[in-house]
């Protein structure tokens, strides 16, 4: 039989339910491959021993009614996991062991999932290349010294390298979709309020959203069904009727109206992205969709708006890391001195940069000009989408303006790095669901993704379009295991 680790989640579940593979066998395969893949630096914390133990327990008393029966899963290290180190990619939480579990991960364990380990990410999810992590760069399994995207870079790398059957990331401005696009995988950011934020280390509360990352669309639908839930512990969680995403998944999208926003043709966009988009439109037509040109007039303001709102919230969210209660504490002469030393040593450059930006835009005298104005523009961006959705059911765009870049290529140029989020950020600002699916390759053979944006709470349509187009695109990652010796 084929290698267990190359199976899709759906196939793995099927094999486990048919008792062809045990949970323990599956776990061993992923652990074995993970151990041979240390060069990718995808893991921050391994939970291998415990995973083997729990998989045996599952096999001794299997429950095949669960949605993830005995499935080992590694998760982004932004989710707090009970008694398992949770770092958020930061030195300041280097030795932090939560006594609680995030709702999203708890949902996974409740359905039979087993924690494989915690995956590397940009520090506090601030980054687009995983280069801001205190725990070092992550390699993209597609090619040596290529970034896996970010901030869920450990997740995308581990997924593409078959170190985990599926994974979960968080997406504040593109942190699921962009790394998925860079690694030839699928990444879905659900509607804001779908997945509880309880127990997820906060970056920007009004934008953060957890979501599935998987090798194909069907797997994302299975995982979304598990992790999306109404949670009273998160006041921004929304109590709406959630679909049975996987069983309602269909390739029949005949007559669905898909909008093409003119404003996403940004200046200097490489031809290969333009061509990918054109191809995507043809695929969508082939699937029976109706293509309609739309306008999202405030698109060009999305990135500056995002880089005011997100740092503002982050500057406040990260104030709790002060050395007083948990995490790193550097000794100081006085309270203020202790704060300064702890935060200077605990936070990396990008985090400090964003705290500074956030503090600035909220400060007295600048609040109205920056934060308040950004909030107003955010409403306009939302309104753009609302109006577009009077005409169409979903929107098709490229996921990123480029393919994966080399490690170090942009790390000294924050603005160029930020520009990478240009197509994903508006979706977070508007709180909409968006998926990135692999749709082609650039001249270097690096994967490129297309993004499908849906109406609020309409993950099902987004998944259905993606599922349908995926079949037509028929993309397959070509992973050579170059990192193994």
């Amino acid at each position, binding site marked *: 039989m084929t290698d267990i680790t190359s199976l899709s989640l759906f196939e793995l579940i099927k094999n486990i339910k048919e008792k062809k593979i045990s949970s323990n066998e599956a776990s061993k395969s992923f652990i074995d491959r993970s151990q041979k893949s240390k060069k990718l630096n995808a893991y921050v914390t391994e939970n291998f021993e415990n995973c083997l133990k729990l998989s045996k327990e599952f096999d001794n008393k299997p429950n095949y009614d669960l949605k993830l029966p005995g499935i080992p899963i590694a998760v982004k290290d932004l989710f707090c996991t009970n008694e398992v180190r949770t770092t958020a990619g930061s030195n300041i939480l280097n030795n932090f062991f*939560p006594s609680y579990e995030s709702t999203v991960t708890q949902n996974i364990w409740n359905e039979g999932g087993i924690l494989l380990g915690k995956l590397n990410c940009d520090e506090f999810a601030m980054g687009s290349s995983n280069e801001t992590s205190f725990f070092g760069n992550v390699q993209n399994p597609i090619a040596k010294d290529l970034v896996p995207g970010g901030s869920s870079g450990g997740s995308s790398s581990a997924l593409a390298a078959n170190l985990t059957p599926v994974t979960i990331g968080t997406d504040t401005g593109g942190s699921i979709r962009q790394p998925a696009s860079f690694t030839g995988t699928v990444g879905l950011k659900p509607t804001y309020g779908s997945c509880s934020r309880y127990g997820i*280390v906060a970056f920007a509360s009004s934008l953060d959203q957890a979501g599935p990352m998987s090798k194909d669309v069907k797997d994302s639908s299975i995982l979304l069904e598990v992790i999306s839930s109404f949670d009273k512990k998160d006041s921004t969680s929304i109590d709406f009727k959630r679909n049975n995403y996987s069983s309602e998944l269909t390739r029949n999208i005949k007559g669905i109206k898909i909008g093409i926003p003119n404003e996403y043709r940004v200046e200097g966009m490489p031809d290969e992205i333009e061509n990918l988009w054109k191809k995507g439109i043809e695929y969508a037509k082939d699937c029976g969709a109706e293509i309609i040109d739309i306008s999202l007039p405030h698109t060009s303001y999305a990135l500056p708006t995002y880089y005011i709102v997100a740092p503002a919230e982050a500057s406040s969210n990260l104030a709790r890391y002060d050395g007083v209660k948990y995490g790193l504490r550097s000794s100081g002469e006085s309270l203020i001195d202790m704060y300064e030393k702890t935060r200077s040593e605990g936070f990396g450059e990008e985090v400090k940069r964003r705290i500074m930006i956030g503090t600035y835009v909220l400060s007295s005298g600048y609040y109205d000009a920056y934060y308040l104005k950004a909030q107003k523009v955010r409403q306009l961006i939302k309104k753009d989408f609302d109006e577009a959705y009077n005409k169409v059911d979903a929107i098709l765009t490229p996921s990123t303006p480029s393919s994966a870049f080399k490690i170090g290529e942009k790390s000294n140029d924050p603005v160029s790095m930020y520009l990478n989020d240009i197509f994903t950020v508006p979706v977070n600002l508007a709180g909409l669901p968006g998926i990135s699916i692999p749709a082609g390759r650039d001249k270097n053979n690096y994967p490129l993704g297309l993004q499908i944006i849906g109406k609020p709470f309409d993950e099902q349509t987004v998944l259905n379009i993606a599922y349908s187009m995926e079949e037509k695109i028929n993309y397959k990652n070509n992973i050579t295991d170059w990192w193994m010796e």
Partner: protein
Amino acid sequence: MDGIMSKNNSEYLIERNDNIYEVVVGLEVHAQVTSNSKLFSSSSTKFGAEPNTQVSLVDAAFPGMLPVINEYCVKQAIKTGIGLKAKINNKSVFDRKNYFYADLPQGYQISQYKYPIVGEGNVILDMPGGQKQVGIERLHLEQDAGKSIHDIDPSNTLVDLNRSGVALMEIVSKPDLRSPDEVNAYIKKLRSIMRYLGTCDGNMQEGSLRADVNVSVRIKGSTELGTRCEIKNVNSIKFMQMAIIYEANRQVDLIEEGEEIDQETRLFDTKKNETRSMRSKEDAHDYRYFPDPDLLPLEITDEFIDQLKSEIPELPDDKKKRFIDEFKISPYEATILVSDIDTAKYFEEVVAKMGKNRDMKLAVNWITGELFALLNNKNIEIAHSPISAKNLAKLINLIKNGTISGKIAKTIFELMMDGDIDPQIIVEEKGLKQQSDPKALEALIDKIINDNREKAIEYKQGKEKLFGFFVGQAMKASGGKANPQLINEILKKKL
């Protein structure tokens, strides 16, 4: 505004070199919401627990923890707003007030900045010169911080987070107060209203009620406000009054010396009885307020407000009015009786238990006289009075129906407090019943007149003072039990 007398003789004036200054005070009162759990977590709020035993992951701001509003605290704030005759806002917003301190685990306090839950209202004060209305600017909900303890460990500051996240109402008055006396009356009235509503216990010793005091001075008659100083976190009425007097005089001195007053935050040193500069306006914190993205705006429907309005008990002003109308007592007496909810309850119970033949005068006198003296002496709250309202009512009725005299009643009162004994039982056991049998009293008086013939003659000749002598003799002979009214009547007849 109807019927509010603006005249008041309780203003505090300072005279310097022919200039007369008045003091202008506004208060920001922090009142702890009466609630079993905190504003955004389910931890207990019980006072006096071991340090750090009432702290949830939310209170200690662990990563990924989120606040969830406690509906009960919201109801309490709305009720208080209704009690302050204030506008309840259908939409209010929780903001983050950002600053670093060891006892502020989140690095920000969740408060309400631009959009408070309660808007403008007012409070009526009963001052010696008449009533005075004090404007309420707003009331908002916010979290309390923890407590830094500097005096246990010589080299470290210790932090107790039990208080962290406890719900506070910040009640901001308009700068309508003009003297320490008015501040006293204002705090007491606020406290009274909140105790009636059950929204704050008003216990200043436990820190349930504290205030930031804004003080400025101006030449009397001027309509412009002077530069104010804010005296932070004063926790007793006495200290507020002392701080105001010190601060007002300090400001007048500065003005008289031709200096400017800096707008600044000051601290009151209770030991030295002076205020000290804490930070100037330039050093003021930039709190970087912004709406808390973890919380949705608080939306309150009119139905919800109406429901709470229907649950509001009779408040002191209305109760006072009713006491005057219904019980025909004086406004002064009514003010005293309604000022504290437990006193009002006690009084009403006495009235109810007195039954049809009630004597309001006696009831008021006994409660504000003997009972208050007793409670004062023993330092007991009226809610824990050793003499129940029921038994005090019985005692009053015994006086009213002539069973005992007022003097005997005082003796009985003393005996009652030892276990709340029924006065009727004491009267019977001790044989203290008043002698009201005219025949027996006539015999007794005949004997006295007989024994004091010369004095009786002197009385008849016009020495009227001697009447008291005979009354005294009669009371003495009866062991104090003779009905004084009957004695008077019989003596007049016989002499």
